[in-house]
């Protein structure tokens, strides 16, 4: 397993290099201009100077290798220095955002906690909803519970989050006034009351994403449970005289979770992507919102770096999914 993991990690390097180059080219070749968002009152020669100072006019390959060197070497060292305090970071340029003229990694570091909070809690919530939903739906296939569950998860799965998000705002923030419609990103949790405030403001984005995740996972789980419920080993378990609880929750669920856990792992990057819209709707200052703003304003370094981080996440989580599969299913061995 260890050698397998190491081999996969080494193989990931050329993959990521290739991905980074493709992202770079796509972003670079798309018609965007960091000065496009400026008012028309700013004269063209000033615009040209701004572009020059941003390095936009360098050849594409020069820009790519500059970026790659910073991404692969300088930024990790800055990260190490930032977390450990060792003086290892090189002096010199970093990846600088066109819009804010500040290091892209600082922006990401500043925004990561919110995304992790929202994405993380919504994912956990989604799983917590999906487990009973999927289990009961499969165990009582075609029952009223199953039909209602299927309907809800189809709705949750097919209605886009930008719609549910606005719907939630209109219902819960505007009409009922239960939750704030704008996420207060400077809120600090210090005591119980501020925790309640945090809970309230995170509730709607988490519910929107959680509903979507729960729909997806519960569908997978239901299908997987149905597969397993008809297997002989379930009959064996019943023949052993086990209670239904043990048969379903131990024998069936354990086996059904193998594909579901890998789907959960594989979907983590997708959830980051899904959070882009939700963050925008609720004004959560996460990675996704950063990406949207960067795209809108032609902030190439941010778009590249965030896209690349998403690519790393995808590669990483597909590796994690594979390893999890090996851990969970004794039939799979990678050595």
């Amino acid at each position, binding site marked *: 397993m260890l050698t397998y993991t190491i081999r996969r990690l080494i193989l990931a390097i050329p993959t990521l290099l290739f991905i980074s180059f493709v992202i770079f080219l796509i972003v670079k070749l798309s018609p965007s201009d960091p000065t496009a968002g400026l008012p028309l009152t700013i004269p063209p020669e000033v615009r040209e100077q701004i572009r020059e100072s941003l390095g936009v006019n360098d050849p594409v390959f020069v820009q790519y290798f500059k970026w790659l060197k910073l991404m692969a070497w300088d930024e990790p060292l800055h990260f190490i220095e930032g977390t450990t305090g060792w003086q290892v970071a090189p002096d010199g340029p970093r990846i600088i955002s066109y819009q804010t003229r500040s290091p892209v990694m600082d922006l990401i570091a500043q925004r990561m906690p919110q995304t992790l909070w929202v994405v993380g809690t919504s994912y956990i919530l989604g799983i917590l909803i999906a487990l009973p939903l999927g289990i009961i739906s499969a165990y009582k296939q075609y029952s009223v519970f199953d039909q209602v569950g299927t309907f809800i998860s189809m709705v949750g799965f097919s209605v886009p989050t930008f719609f549910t998000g606005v719907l939630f705002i209109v219902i819960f923030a505007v009409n009922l006034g239960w939750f704030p419609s704008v996420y207060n990103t400077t809120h600090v949790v210090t005591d119980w009351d501020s925790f309640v405030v945090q809970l309230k403001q995170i509730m709607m984005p988490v519910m929107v994403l959680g509903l979507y995740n729960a729909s997806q996972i519960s569908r997978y789980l239901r299908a997987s449970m149905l597969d397993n419920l008809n297997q*002989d*080993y379930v009959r*064996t378990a019943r023949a*052993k*005289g086990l209670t239904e609880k043990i048969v379903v929750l131990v024998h069936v669920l354990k*086996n059904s979770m193998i594909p579901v856990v890998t789907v959960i792992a594989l979907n983590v990057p997708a959830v980051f992507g899904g959070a882009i819209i939700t963050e925008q709707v609720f004004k959560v200052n996460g990675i996704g919102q950063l990406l949207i703003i960067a795209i809108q304003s032609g902030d190439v370094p941010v778009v590249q770096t965030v896209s690349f981080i998403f690519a790393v996440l995808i590669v990483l989580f597909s590796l994690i999914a594979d390893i999890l599969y090996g851990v969970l*299913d004794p*039939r799979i061995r990678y050595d």
Partner: protein
Amino acid sequence: MFDTSGAKKLVEVRDLTMHFPIRTGLLRRLTGSVKAVDGVSFDIYEGETLGLVGESGCGKSSCGRAILRLYDPTAGSIRLEGEEIAHAPFDKLRRLRPKMQMVFQDPQASLNPRMTVAGIIGEPLMEHTKLNAAKRLERIYELMDAVGLNREFANRYPHEFSGGQRQRIGIARALALNPKFIVCDEPIAALDVSIQAQVVNLLEELQDRLGLTYLFISHDLSMVRHIADRVAVMYLGRVVELAPRDALFADPMHPYTTALLSAVPEPDPASHDDAERIILQGDVPSPANPPKGCNFCTRCPRVMEICRQIDPVIREIAPGRHVACHLYAEDTHKTAAHAAQPTEV
């Protein structure tokens, strides 16, 4: 040959019916049912092996599963040592489970892939006994010895074994609680021929040693002939003939049994060539929509008018021999029926 006279009845099955509902349409309305087992009655005596044969789809596996209440039977009664199983509440059933066990057809699918051998064999012990961990392990080793598995494999997973070894695990698991009655549902069908004999021999040896009673479900007549004391033949949810093994193989009475036996290859090639094979015409009717009258009337080479009208009941027409066929109706000459048999024995 097992002698039924004076033996104790271990399992009594009466009018066992197992219908699976068919739901169709948007609202999944009940539109019919698959009559997998349709009024089956037989007894199994303590210590014997009852073979249950028939083509695939005839309902023999459903019958076996219903007897162990792995399915909830639609109607009928099943008694194990006089205790009703067919409609027993869950708790009572759970108490009865240790007495009756099952060995499944597919040794791969019937073992939980995420449990080790020790886990699989030990789980019933954990559920039904109060053995501590050490005692339990001792028992697991004992059982592994009994079925011829190396003790060192206790912590391995099912997929690491060959098919024959897996079936041994399945048998060890079935034996864990000292059952009296084991349903063997095609236990060797999925195995290589060379392994089949080993497993059958193991089953026989265990029967001798532990005094087990088997219901041996198979479509393989030669294997049934080898292991069974008595044989029940099923066709489309019904038992059409039930007889002691030798009598049945020597002198099949029901036209379906006759046809079935004619398809069995003879060990002696000469006699095989001589034997006249009866090829049945047509397909097996759908169990969702069986024909009127006798279930076999659509394919029977000796069909009579009455067969298309009246469903024959199974009757004992000679000691120990039960047949459901109008050829052996009370008003028909037994000899005439025998004369009409294609092969005289």
